[in-house]
């Protein structure tokens, strides 16, 4: 249809931009991954093509690090959702309309400070000999100094902190789209708050939920600086392996191979998670099928298709 293709043309500038500035350079990096490191002082060379770098990339070190990263990624994303969804809900439904804009901006304001500076702020807060440690010891919550720094907990705190806005904002936009009408209708029909949320609000805002989860999980898997600053050795993430090949080892071929493997594994994880969720919610979907309209009357002219409302 003419209008459809004309409308689709709206995406052409984005296509072009990304193709020129992203796909082309990344294709170059994938090209690098088939090369090798030519001696001590070279960074990459593609005279001889091989898959050897991929064999090197799929080493036990890589997988062990990836396991750790995946653990942090899943827990971090889940926590971001659990912490961020109520905030997004609050901003979308509980806060007066004229305050929402300010709140959106306030959620983002901390992130206009450089990330290393924010992380150092956390270091100061979590310092075992710092004021918060002293305060907690004084109150009696802690027996000894605060021992969170350089543990997995610190990694999670840092990671959740850095990605919370990326979860809150898409969720807010999606919840907001649901609007008060359907929710009120649900309450009018007798559903309680929780039922309304799980059967009306959440399903209708599903694209936003997916956007939020992806926008948090994916960059989180590639992130590593905050994790190492706050978590020390416990914050060893696979992004650091990739970066170390490009920087310290100056072995762009191996770095490229590792990067490609990392990207493939992330996409695989998402596919697996999507499949798992699809399978898990299968019984819920089939049992929630609500058929409206008369089924027994059939006319010759028109068979009114039973309207199906699925949650």
């Amino acid at each position, binding site marked *: 249809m003419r209008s459809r293709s004309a409308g689709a043309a709206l995406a052409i500038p984005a296509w072009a931009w990304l193709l020129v500035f992203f796909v082309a350079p990344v294709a170059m990096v994938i090209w690098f991954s088939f090369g090798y490191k030519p001696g*001590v002082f070279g960074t990459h060379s593609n005279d001889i093509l091989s898959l050897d770098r991929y064999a090197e990339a799929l080493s036990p070190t890589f997988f062990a*690090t990836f396991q750790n990263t995946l653990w942090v990624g899943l827990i971090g994303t889940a926590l971001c959702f659990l912490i961020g969804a109520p905030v997004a809900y609050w901003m979308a439904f509980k806060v007066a309309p004229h305050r929402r804009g300010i709140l959106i901006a306030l959620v983002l304001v901390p992130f206009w400070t450089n990330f290393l500076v924010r992380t150092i702020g956390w270091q100061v807060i979590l310092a075992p*000999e710092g004021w918060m440690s002293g305060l907690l010891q004084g109150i009696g919550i802690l027996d000894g100094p605060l021992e969170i720094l350089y543990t997995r907990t610190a990694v999670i705190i840092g990671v959740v902190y850095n990605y919370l806005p990326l979860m809150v904002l898409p969720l807010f936009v999606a919840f907001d789209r649901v609007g008060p009408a359907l929710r009120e209708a649900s309450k009018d029909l007798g559903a309680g708050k929780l039922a309304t949320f799980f059967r009306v609000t959440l399903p209708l805002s599903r694209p936003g939920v997916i956007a939020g989860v992806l926008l948090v999980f994916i960059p989180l898997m590639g992130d590593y600086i905050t994790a190492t600053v706050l978590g020390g050795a416990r914050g060893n993430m696979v992004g650091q392996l990739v970066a170390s090949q490009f920087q310290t080892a100056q072995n762009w071929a191996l770095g490229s191979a590792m990067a490609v493997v990392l990207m493939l594994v992330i996409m695989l994880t998402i596919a697996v998670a999507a499949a798992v969720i699809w399978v898990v919610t299968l019984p819920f979907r089939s049992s929630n099928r609500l058929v409206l309209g008369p089924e027994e009357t059939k006319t010759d002219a028109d068979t009114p298709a039973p309207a199906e409302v699925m949650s």
Partner: protein
Amino acid sequence: MNESRTPLRILAPEGSAPTILRELSRRRFLSIAALTGGAAVLAACTPGGGGSPAPQATGGALENSLSIYTWGDYDSPEVVAAFTSELGPRITLDSYSSNEELIAKLIAARGTSGFDIVVPTGVFVPQMIENGLLTKFNKDLLPNLSNIDPAYLGRAWDPTNDYSVCKAWGTTGFVYDKTLITRELTTWGDFFDAAQNEASGKTSMSDDPAGVVGAYFWAEDMDWNTEDPDDLEACRAFLVDEIAPHISAFDSYPGTNSIPQGTQMLMQAWNGDARLGILEASDPDRWQWVLPGPITELWMDNWAIAEGAPNPEAAHAFINFSMTPENLALNLDYIGYNVGGKDMEQAAIDEGLELTDLIFFTPEQLATMREQELNDSQTVRVEIWNEMKVAAGA
């Protein structure tokens, strides 16, 4: 600053004496000398290219601007401002955070990066020369080279100082909490021993394969640039299996956070970084710095001029300017590392600089310091370092 210099005698008409006295500061004299010397060279040189790459600067007039690509906050603002006010060129400072980033930039730019002065660490200088990333100095424009202590000239990466000259140098040692580790630690062997015992779980090592892998070889008094696979395998077995589980963090700058905040018990650190941390800690007496035996490292950041530098005259002038005794002292005070100048220790102590034993070392100590060499074992070292991180994070 020593006052024992032979006075300069000038024969001039009486009327112009006050002018000469007013205008003739040492720096002015040097730049004028450079100009006249350069003019003479220009007059003498024939057009047509030479065979070997000649230095670009010939002592002509200084350009209007100068672009320095260096580590962040690595020059005293007073020196930078004084250069502009006395000699003219406006300075643009840009920063990088790793040598490899610098090299990647220069290689990709192929001579059009727009940077004049770069500050690589010595171990990378051979690579940069090989890849044609640096131009030779015109030593005539750098008379202040004579202010640099000869012990810091002619290092392994550039024995003739044709491409680089010392800007600042340092070494690697460790710091420990005296109140918690009560015995005295003096060698790298002691470091590893304490890491496995008292300081287990509260030890940090450098976030850098050179320092981490090097520590093993320094403890064993072996050549730390070895490419012998058996040596490297022994190193891997020791570090990954026995040391890594006791390491809680890989941090190259413990002075900026771990020491002042007291988060670790035993930390591998550079001397300047450790000094900063101890000075800024609330209880400096708690910390003990050790220059460990039997051997350790010497690393050096160098002034160098990039290939294709648009302002070579100004570049030489700035490097020369930074090597005057006053400016050497200013930089020493600002960055807290030894800047390689002659006879600076006494003056520094007189000025009240604290913990000078973490900056100035005796010739005996200097003899225990070895330079790094970049070779084919780098890949294995990075592997060992990555494996240590996995083992430590488990």
